[in-house]
């Protein structure tokens, strides 16, 4: 059935092969998130927060990452809705599920943190933390090292529209544009129009959040984050600017929030916001690239993968009481009390 070479969105196009690859990751991410929501309700997990509605943009983000460890590669300061980004970076679904299942085998947090709170040194993913926007204050630091080091590594920092109200957002713009010390920071705002229950338009009057960059001379784009083809190209341009120019760029993606803020608000499916996967599947079908049975197969395969990951994770050990102190401190040759790790109060 694959007959067309590329798929169009407005004036932009993407190869059929790339579109199909993006679609597969989007579906896998959604299937995983939906299974995790079930986990939070069934007792297999405890809490859910994630990115249904952000898969189009986040998948394309992951596919643009130069992944690796150290300043030669991109650094990622993510928020907690970036599951699709990690899958696009070919990280296993099982690792995300291990965190949702609170297993000690969870490589991101040993079952300590909420799902979506990644930490992976081998791919420069610095620990995601729940306070929104602190990542914008930390990001300039990794970019300082990258700029000094040379090469084309970029610091990517992702947050939401609500969190952009915090001062750390301004910190990132100021520190990334110190005269003569500009930094290769890609500032991404995922605008879902919500801060938990508060509509963005009840609190913000700026037309676009990235308009604030103009005062600092930071080039910016807004993109329909529900459109993977548009997102792909916006990201391509943004990365190209940061990699080559070694200056910051701002990108604001309008996205949906398809299961509310988190399981704390029920994580019920929202019906009145566009679904990027349904939209993309319609486009791929219209282009004659993907038949309904192929779509069904993709979903079935993704759901099986998610189910298998959950089954596997639940067979793995939970944290034990003896794990409470682990990894508080790195071993230190100059500490008389904790030469290895924390062991409780000094004795």
């Amino acid at each position, binding site marked *: 059935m694959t007959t067309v070479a590329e798929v169009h969105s407005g004036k932009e196009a993407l190869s059929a092969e790339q579109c199909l690859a993006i679609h597969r990751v989007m579906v896998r991410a959604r299937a995983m998130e939906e299974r995790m929501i079930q986990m939070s309700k069934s007792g297999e997990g405890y809490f859910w927060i994630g990115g249904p509605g952000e898969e189009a943009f986040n998948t394309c983000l992951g596919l643009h990452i130069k992944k690796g460890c150290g300043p030669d590669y991109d650094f990622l300061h993510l928020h907690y809705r970036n599951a699709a980004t990690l899958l696009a970076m070919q990280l296993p679904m099982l690792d995300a599920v291990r965190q949702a299942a609170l297993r000690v085998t969870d490589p991101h947090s040993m079952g300590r943190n909420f799902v979506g709170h990644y*930490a992976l040194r081998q791919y420069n993913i610095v620990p995601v933390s729940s306070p929104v926007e602190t990542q914008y204050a930390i990001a300039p630091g990794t970019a300082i090292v990258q700029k000094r080091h040379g090469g084309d590594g970029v610091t990517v920092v992702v947050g939401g529209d609500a969190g952009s109200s915090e001062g750390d957002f301004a910190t990132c713009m100021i520190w990334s544009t110190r005269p003569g010390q500009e930094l290769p920071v890609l500032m991404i705002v995922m605008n879902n129009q919500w801060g938990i229950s508060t509509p963005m338009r009840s609190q913000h009057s700026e037309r676009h959040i990235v308009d604030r960059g103009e005062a600092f001379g930071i080039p910016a784009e807004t993109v329909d984050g529900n459109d993977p083809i548009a997102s792909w190209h916006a990201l391509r341009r943004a990365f190209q600017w940061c990699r080559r120019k070694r200056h910051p760029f701002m990108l604001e993606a309008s996205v949906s929030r398809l299961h509310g803020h988190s399981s704390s608000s029920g994580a019920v499916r929202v019906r009145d916001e566009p679904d990027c996967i349904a939209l993309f599947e319609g486009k791929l079908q219209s282009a004659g690239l993907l038949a309904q049975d192929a779509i069904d197969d993709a979903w079935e395969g993704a759901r099986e993968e998610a189910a298998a990951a959950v089954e596997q994770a639940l067979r793995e050990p939970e944290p034990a009481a003896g794990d409470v102190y682990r990894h508080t401190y790195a071993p230190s040759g100059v500490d008389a009390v*904790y030469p290895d790790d924390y062991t409780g*109060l000094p004795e």
Partner: protein
Amino acid sequence: MATLVQAVRMALHYGETYLGVTDILGEDVGPPLGGVFTATQGLATAWNTPLDERGIIGAAMGIAYAGGRPVAEIQFCDYGFNTIDLLKIAGNQRWAGAGNYELPLVVMTPSGSGIRGSLYHSHSFESWASRLAGWKIVMPSNALDAYGLMLSAILDPNPVLVLLPKALLRVHGEQLIPGEPADQEYLKQLIDAPLGDRSNWQPRWPDLDEYLVPIGQANRVREGTAATVVSYGRTLPLCVQAADALAAAHGLTFDVIDLRSIFPYDWSALSQSVLKTGRVLLVNEDTEVTNFGEHLLRRVIDEHFYELEVRPRVLQGRHLPGIGLHQTYERNSVPQLAHIQATLQALATEEA
């Protein structure tokens, strides 16, 4: 002998020359000023940041994540309060992140009273900091310890907060730092930036050696039998003075313990001394609700209640919104020599 702030500067020079320090950053830290207390004059890796404490801590964290070894300065600890959630993340990231990252980050900041600093240049920070699990917190009371603790802080792969007692920054040490010239005027000529135009000035660093004060190791600076007094920072030399005066006047001798590390603290040194004397006074100038000294007091009571001869004491700053500029306010807000001496004498002479 070097002053405490000169010792910090020499430690930072040693750190950037031999221990891999990549960035010394903060407000007014780079040239031309080299720090409002001169702690960073003439350093090769010192640079000025925007007036943005959250940015300073955040950027230093990012530098550390990416493999650098930063030393960040918060100009006065009084201005560090808006960085608390970043400090919290710096402390929890390794634990929360299953040990993925080390964060070799040093934050130094002047702390405490004693320079007529009024409300926002007199705060203490150690009680707040002691709640930041994942951090190590040290506070020297003399130049040599400042040098040795700063080098340890730099070498430690975890976040370390170095609290510098403001009142003691310009106090000369009594012991030479290894490699330091004995003549303090000569040292000044070598490493202190001149007043006025310093655009062509370069420091001439002495050939310093490594000297480490292990984190978590207290120093018993006086030995005695009448009671134990535990302190750090500005109040430590006052405790020594009080102990010496009571020894001269009344023949009362004291174990005076300079804690040096707030966390991890040297429980073993404190505990052994309390077991020996059965009497203990804990002194610091942070406000009394809720004070780090109270934690030590709790452990003393929990673990040594039946070995105590008299009730243990804590001398601390009053629970007040700030320290007022007039000296009457300051003298009556935080422990002074007379308070310490009177409390120590009462502790030593109370009938068991």
